[in-house]
């Protein structure tokens, strides 16, 4: 029999599953609002349960063996959940994000007999399972459940671009699943177990082994595809931009960062003892991370379709998270975990603003919306605030995560990554602030390069009151800013060390205090340039425009939306990972 706190572990996964199975079984009998209520309540329950688990896990990870199959003679027979403090909090954050998203989407999907809620609850259960599991194949199962639910949700609108985007998303992420399963097969054949700890022990015994490196290459490739790291990032802009906005909130807020969360766990826990992998990781993660941060930021600045802009900004921030991971230190990984939560809150709020614009103004195009947002100024304030937070306003969780990552990078002498992260964040902030200025203040009559970017007419149901949509959005921002910094500072060294299975460090270092301000200033300058360029002297404008155009067109052409291109880039990405591993 399992003692009290550990016995809670299956519940956050089982409860949403039971609710959604019951909802499907009685789908045509349910009254209209019941799915909304049930879904919100179960997401809240998951959040509370995960919070309780996280608090209880502070003294050491909680372990639960399904079916009562505890390890015998050092061999793991069943599937286990193992929850450390950090994983518990990340899961609690995900539950909360879902609850707020359900409120945001209240009445949005009432024609579908709760099918939307069924898919979302499955999605939630899979994410929690992904955070909790300590079994490689179980990780894959939750990865796939997440993917399948996500595929169906993306195409919900059934618009032409939505469908093509959903097909690209499905194909690329299915390939990710196959790669991951191949990697799992390799590591299982070599180590004879599927349990994280069991594999880690066997890897530590084995020494340098090409099979272990190969397995890591495949699994890391799969998780990076989920995490939208260059050159696997292409699917994200297609999928996020077209998914219904409540779904985009979850995609950007939780799904993408969960891929990197998985990568952090796998590389620290499972492959932590492989010298070859650990030597290759800094170069690999920091290199790809810098590139991703810059490319995502630059592309975000060039978009006029708001959701596509936010999608590229998610790519940029995923790159920043990856650089934090690449520091391979407790502060870097801890910073990345805080960043996951902070970024999820802020990005979720931004996608909600986009949803509000879609619902009330029936457009998502930055240029078409110019000045139309004046009537809903509270949304404008939320958007501007979120934009400032995104580029590093020193306030709240996202900033704390940023400073921790910067501290770790500075300590290890990765100056380039530091600069790339700051520039990436500033670019995404500039893009969001420019859009906020244009939409809510009516600035910027002269569109620049962004005018050539793809856009499309879209509409979402306008039957919901503004406050119902704005409430969850503000709640997310308030959460980001409201969590006391002292709490994190106190708990993080312990939680991050437990997450990485390393001895506890005393304190974590933070980056220089002026960096966030530099980032904010750069973002404001960028946004100001975008909005006021026809008031600026030509001497300043011309050179910028000249340097922008050619690379911009090339980048836009790369994001062709052709699945064939994406498959080729996927192969290139895996080859890159393999090459770095081989050289380590």
């Amino acid at each position, binding site marked *: 029999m399992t003692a009290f706190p550990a016995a809670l572990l299956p519940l956050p996964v089982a409860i949403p599953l039971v609710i959604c199975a019951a909802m499907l079984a009685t789908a045509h009998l349910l009254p209209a609002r019941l799915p909304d209520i049930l879904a919100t309540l179960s997401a809240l329950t998951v959040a509370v349960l995960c919070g309780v688990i996280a608090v209880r896990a502070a003294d050491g990870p909680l372990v639960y063996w399904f079916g009562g199959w505890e390890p015998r003679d050092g061999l793991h027979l069943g599937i286990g959940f193992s929850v450390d403090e950090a994983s518990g909090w990340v899961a609690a954050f995900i539950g909360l994000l879902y609850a707020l998203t359900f409120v945001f989407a209240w009445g949005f999907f009432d024609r579908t007999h709760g099918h939307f809620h069924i898919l979302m609850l499955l999605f939630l259960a899979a994410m929690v399972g992904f955070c909790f599991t300590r079994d490689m194949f179980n990780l894959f199962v939750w990865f796939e459940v997440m993917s399948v639910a996500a595929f169906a949700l993306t195409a919900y*609108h059934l618009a032409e671009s939505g469908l093509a985007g959903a097909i690209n998303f499905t194909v690329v992420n299915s390939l990710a699943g196959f790669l991951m399963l191949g990697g799992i097969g390799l590591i299982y054949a070599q180590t004879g177990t599927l349990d994280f700890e069991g594999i880690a022990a066997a890897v530590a015994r084995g020494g340098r082994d090409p099979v272990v490196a190969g397995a890591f290459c495949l699994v890391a490739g799969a998780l990076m595809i989920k995490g939208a790291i260059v050159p696997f990032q292409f699917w994200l802009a297609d999928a996020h931009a077209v998914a219904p906005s409540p779904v985009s909130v979850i995609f950007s807020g939780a799904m993408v960062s969960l891929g990197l969360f998985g990568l952090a766990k796998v590389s620290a826990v499972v492959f932590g003892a492989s010298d070859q992998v650990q030597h290759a990781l800094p170069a690999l993660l920091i290199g790809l991370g810098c590139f991703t941060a810059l490319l995502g930021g630059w592309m975000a600045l060039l978009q006029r379709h708001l959701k596509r802009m936010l999608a590229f900004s998610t790519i940029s921030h995923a790159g920043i998270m990856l650089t934090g991971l690449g520091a391979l230190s407790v502060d870097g990984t801890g910073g990345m975990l805080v960043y996951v939560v902070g970024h999820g809150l802020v990005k979720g709020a931004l996608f909600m603003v986009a949803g509000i614009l879609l619902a009330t103004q029936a457009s998502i195009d930055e240029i078409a919306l110019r000045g139309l947002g004046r009537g809903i100024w509270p949304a404008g304030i939320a958007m501007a605030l979120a934009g400032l937070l995104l580029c590093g306003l020193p306030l709240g969780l996202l900033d704390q995560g940023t400073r921790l990552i910067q501290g770790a990078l500075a300590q290890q002498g990765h100056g380039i990554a530091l600069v790339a992260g700051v520039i990436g964040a500033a670019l995404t902030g500039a893009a969001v602030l420019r859009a906020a200025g244009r939409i809510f203040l009516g600035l910027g009559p002269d569109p620049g390069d962004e005018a050539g970017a793809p856009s499309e007419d879209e509409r979402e149901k306008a039957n919901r009151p503004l406050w119902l949509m704005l409430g969850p959005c503000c709640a997310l921002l308030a959460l980001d800013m409201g969590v006391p910094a002292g709490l994190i500072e106190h708990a993080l060294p312990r939680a991050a060390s437990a997450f990485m299975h390393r001895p506890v460090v005393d304190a974590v270092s933070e980056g220089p205090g002026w960096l966030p301000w530099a980032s904010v200033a750069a973002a404001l300058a960028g946004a100001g340039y975008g909005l006021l360029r026809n008031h600026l002297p030509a001497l300043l404008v011309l050179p910028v425009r000249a340097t922008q155009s050619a690379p911009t067109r090339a980048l836009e052409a790369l994001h062709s939306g052709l699945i064939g291109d994406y498959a*080729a880039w996927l192969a290139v990405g895996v080859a890159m990972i393999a090459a770095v591993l081989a050289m380590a």
Partner: protein
Amino acid sequence: MSPRVRIALLALAALVLLPGAAEVIAGLPPFGSTIAQYGERINAITPEARHVANMVSAINFDLRGLDTLGEEFMLLAAITGTVVLLRGRRGEGNTGHAMRRPGRAVIPRSEAVILACRIAGPLTALFGLYVVLHATVTPGGGFQGGVILASGTLLIYLGEGYAGWRQAIHSHWLDALEGGGALLFALCGLVPMLTGAAFMQNILPLGTFRDLFSGGLMLVENLGVALAVTGGFTQLFLEFMEETRAADEAEEPGEESA
């Protein structure tokens, strides 16, 4: 990117990956030489611990039952998604009755086909039931049997025609079957917890080894999977067939599915 550039990129990646793949393959245990310790151990202890003969079923429903739970819900997600995506366009009101495509003549079926289907249908169903029930002793189980059962319902389509098929099979029942099966499986996990055991721990009598009724809780889980898969796959076939029938009228522009 032109196809030629694409293939060049692929070839380049293959060139880089080939030596790595060769090294990995060389590092693997040679084919057929040995199996992993985990599988060896399961083969050794499970017949005695769970009284079942089929190790794969034992793993699927007991040792690694959580994976199967996830898998079942993955199926549920896919089928719910399919239903939403296909119905979103047709409108849900149309699913209750058979739609005939205008302009396509109804071809009368020959007596032989109808007779063959009436014989083959029950036989297929019987075989499906056999596969479902013998999960713990012979190859097969809820998933395989469920797919066979669902294919059996397709024979109704062949034999009785589309309208007959639609009359025999109602979408709501399939939803209930699918959701109910998945619910049964999930409850198999939760109910043992009420008695103080672990999630999905066996609390039923195990039965005798090599008997039809061996494995305890596994049988209930197997049943849940069979229900969910039968309902799910039939639903899938139904929705797909509906698609070939849908009248190809132009839809009003700007129609929203949400």
